[in-house]
Structures are given as C-alpha cells and as structure tokens.
C-alpha cells in the first residue's frame, strides 16, 4: 500500500534481482533456438552463411516460404499429416469414448484390470513396437498407404484417449446419470445425451493431444511410408536434409510451417497441458 519500502522489502531487493536474472537465463535459452529458426527461415541461402550479421535481423525475405510451398512436396506432406492426424485422432476418440464409458461407469468382472492395462499399453515405447508393427502392416499389404499410419497411431492414441477420458468421465456426478436413467434413458442414451455434452472440453483436449502426437510421430512414418507422396511432415523435412546441399533457409521455413499448427493448438489447450503431463500426454 505505502510507496516506501519496508526494511524487509529493501533487504529482499538483491534476491529479487537474482531471481529475475535467473529467469532471464531460462527465457533466453528456451527462446533462442526459436528465434534463430525464424531468422534463418527469412534469409537467403547466401545470407544464412554470412558471419557479419549472424544474430541480428537484416535483409529478411519470404522467398524460402514461397519456394517450400510452391516448389517442393510440402503441401502434399502437410495434407498427409492433416489427413492422418484427423483420421487417427477421430478413430481413437470413438474407441476411447466407448472404452472409457465402459471402464468408468459400468461394473463388471475384469474392468479394473483392463483399466490398468490401458495405462500399461500407453507406456510401451515406439522403439519396441516399430518392427512388430511394420511386420504386421507389411502382412496386411498396407505399407506405403496412409492407412499404415492411421492404424499404427492407434497404439498410442487409443490408450491415451481412453485413459484421459476415464479420468474425465469420473468427474461427472453420478446423480446426473441416475436422473437420466430414472427418466427412462438407456445407458447409450445417457452416454450420448448426458456424458458426451458435459465432457466436451475433455473430448476437445483429448482430440488435440492425439492430433499433436500423430503430427509429431516420426519412427513409424519413417519405416512405413517412404514414398514421397505419402510422407508426413516429419519425414518430408528429413528428406530435405538428406539432399546433397543443406538448404537451411528452406529447411527452417518448412520447420516453422510444421511447428505453427502445434503451437497454436497448444495455446488453445494450455490449461490442460499441465494436468495431462504426468499422465504422459505428450510422448517423446
């Protein structure tokens, strides 16, 4: 309230300064790679290697974005990523909703064990699964189709969606459901008319997480969709890299186009990210 600082507050000043200095270090370390990525993406191939103005913005151009979008398969890769992301997330959400309702609301033998195994499934790393999945997808003659990815991504999206929605459904008061049942609603009616509308935020969040995880997935896509017109964004970017000359300006422009959707989605659901973290919402 008073303008003058109390002695205690005055003693605190050096501490506060140190605190903000440390915070500044964190902010710089976290931000710098993003800054440099943007800077590189706005430079010509010649300026990328120019040591005179390495850290400061000068001679910025948008050519790299135009080249990447116009002269490479970037738009095809973006489309593939969107298709795979939407399809695999939608499928996982349907499966997850049905399973979560069953495991959170119905009582029957084995339901607890199955709920536990959902978490277990989610924790199986892709490095263990990529060869087994590759062999199965090859057996099904689905290699080099987008189906290969849509199906493979169910291995992490389904357990994640189910796990997250079990938690969400449990927060919805049982009384609401009982009331609907008394009014003559069937179990499925309750799911459609009571549970789903009430868990809209949870559904949206689960969908966004599934979409992001699919968007970022690299290993399955590397082994299962090698033809250029079937690549998703991560593999497309990787193929930039194995060209003879590394065109860093274009590569960073493509990287920004690949990051933007994820960052935008993240900002939409930021609130839930923290809660989801310990459940392993983003697998890396």
């Amino acid at each position: 309230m008073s303008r003058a600082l109390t002695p205690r507050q005055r003693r605190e000043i050096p501490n506060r300064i140190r605190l903000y200095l440390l915070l500044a270090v964190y902010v710089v370390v976290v931000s710098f790679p993003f800054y440099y990525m943007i800077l590189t993406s706005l430079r010509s191939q010649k300026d990328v290697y120019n040591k005179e103005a390495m850290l400061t913005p000068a001679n910025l151009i948008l050519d790299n974005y135009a080249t990447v979008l116009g002269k490479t398969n970037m738009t095809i890769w973006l489309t593939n990523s969107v298709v795979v992301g939407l399809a695999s997330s939608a499928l996982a959400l349907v499966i997850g909703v049905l399973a979560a309702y069953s495991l959170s609301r119905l009582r029957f033998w084995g339901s607890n064990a199955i709920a536990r195994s959902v978490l277990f499934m989610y924790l199986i790393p892709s490095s263990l699964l990529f060869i087994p999945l590759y062999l199965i997808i090859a057996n099904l003659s689905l290699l080099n189709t987008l189906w290969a990815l849509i199906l493979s991504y169910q291995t992490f999206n389904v357990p994640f969606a189910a796990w997250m929605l079990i938690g969400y459904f449990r927060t919805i008061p049982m009384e609401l459901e009982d009331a609907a049942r008394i009014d003559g609603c069937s179990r499925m009616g309750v799911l459609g008319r009571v549970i789903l509308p009430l868990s809209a935020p949870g559904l949206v969040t689960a969908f966004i997480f599934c979409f992001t995880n699919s968007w970022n997935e690299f290993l399955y896509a590397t082994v299962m969709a090698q033809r250029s017109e079937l690549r998703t964004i991560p593999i497309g970017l990787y193929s930039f890299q194995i060209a003879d000359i590394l065109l860093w300006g274009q590569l960073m422009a493509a990287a920004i186009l690949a990051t933007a959707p994820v960052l935008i989605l993240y900002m939409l659901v930021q609130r839930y990210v923290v809660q989801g973290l310990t459940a392993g919402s983003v697998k890396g």
Partner: protein
Amino acid sequence: MTGIAPTPRPGPGARTLRQRLGREAPLGYLLLLPLLLVTFGLLVYPIANAFSISLQDRMLGAQGPFIGLGNYIELLTDDRRFRSVAGNSVVFTLVSVGGKILIGMVMALLLNQRLAMREMFRGWLLFPWVAPTFVTALTWRWMYDGTAGVINYVLLQLGLIKLPIAWLADPATAMGAVIATNIWRGFPFFGVSLLAAMQAIPHDLYEAADVDGATAWQKFVNVTLPGVRTTLVVTTMLSTIWTFNDFQIVFLMTGGGPAFATHLFATYAYKVGFEGSRIGYATAISFLLTPLLIVMILALSPLIMRSENE
C-alpha cells in the same frame, strides 16, 4: 469373527454367468470390443509375432531358419557395436535425465516464487516440450553446424573457444551435444510437473519451518522435496523410459555417428533392420530390454494411478 458360522453362500453352479461377471457385463464388454481389438491386433499379436521372428535368422521380406536364441546370444557375446550402443544408451539416459531433473527443479523453484506474469512464463518455458521433436533436432543440428553454426559463432565472439568445433562430427563432442539438445527439450516437463506439485504443498508447512528458523536449503530438503516426491519419482521414471528408447534426436542429428559414438538401441535396431535388412537380428535388439521395460512400467503404473487419485 471367530465363533460366527460363515453364511452359506450359494454354490458356484447356482449363479449364472451373468451374475458372476456383473449385471452390466454384456454392455461393458461390447463397448470395450474396439479397444480390445486394437490391443490384440496392434499390440499383443504383433509383439508375439515379432518375438518369433527374433528367433529366426531372417532378412527383410524373406523367410529364415529358426535359430532359437541365436540372435540374442550373438548380441550379447559377439557384437562389439552393440556393446558401444549399450554403453551409449546408458550414458545418454543417465546424463539426460539427470540434467532434466536438475534444470527442471530449478525452473520449478523459480516459478514457485512471487513473480510478475508467472503464468505467462510457465507457458513460455514449456515451448521446447511442445515443439515437435523433429523440428528441435533439425534446428539444433543447424545451430551446431561446424562452419556456419551459431553456437560456434557465439563462443568464438565471447572468446570461449579459439577454433570452431565440429560438434556433431567429432566423436568427443557428439554425445554431449546430442544430450544437451535432449535436456533442452525435456527439462520443461520436469519443471512444470514439479511446479504443480510444489503449489500443492500447504503453505503453513513453510511458515512452521520459518518459525523454527530453518534456512532456505533446510526448507527445500525437509518441506519441498518430500512434497514433490511422488511427482519426482513418476516423472523420472517416465522420462527414463522415453529417453532410453529415444530415436528421433539421435537419428536426425547424427544418424548414430560419428563412428557409432551416439548410436542408441532404437537407432541401432533401425540400422540393422532397415538399412542392413537383418530383421530377425533387429527385432532381437529391440526385444532385449523388454524385461527391464516391463519391470519399469509395472513399477510405474501404480504410482501414476495413485498420483491421479490424490
């Protein structure tokens, strides 16, 4: 309890299957059907199938003879590359996870102070975790570039090095460089998770410690650390599983090189199976650690369950 005769229960034959499984069992199982289909079709069966292939001397796209544990024995006794891969994986995991815990803990302590715009900073510092890993790996590869990389530029300008360093091409620095990137990517996960746990610690515990004249360090050890213990254990174990099985960062930054200095289990399995076509052997590589992995997951699941119920 003694002295009271047990109530006679109806014999098992007297109950119908439906009673035994639960009245809601038919609908319950029906709704689980798609999940079970995914579990068996895309997890259980592929893993069992791949296990049988790990017992064969098989090339990609071909059949091969059954050789029992031959692949596993070759891995453990005869494969010098595998030995360096195993060593790399241990170093990569221990140093990465250790670094993430340390830097994440400081981040959490920092954001747990009274700060202007704390929420904004928390969201901002989470960016490395949110950005796609392939983008992070490529960007850092560019920053580490030996001739035009910005890291060399800054270090030269500051006079910290005399000559540019080929960070990713030199076996002496490649692993450290890859680990640094991995820590950058992963520490916010620890930071934000630990912060959430710290904010749940009741404030009067700190006030009581103040009354007792505790130093900041004593408060950290006796109040903060016990308060975040479960979260710390869960995040550490999760991160250990992920880091040990990491593929992207190494694959995109060094491809396992130079001279195998950064190859990990997953990149080595990929190399053997898809670049060398020895799919039976590659499968054995990725299965070798499964027992360890199962133990870790089994230890971790109840902890996650408990922390979610709190």
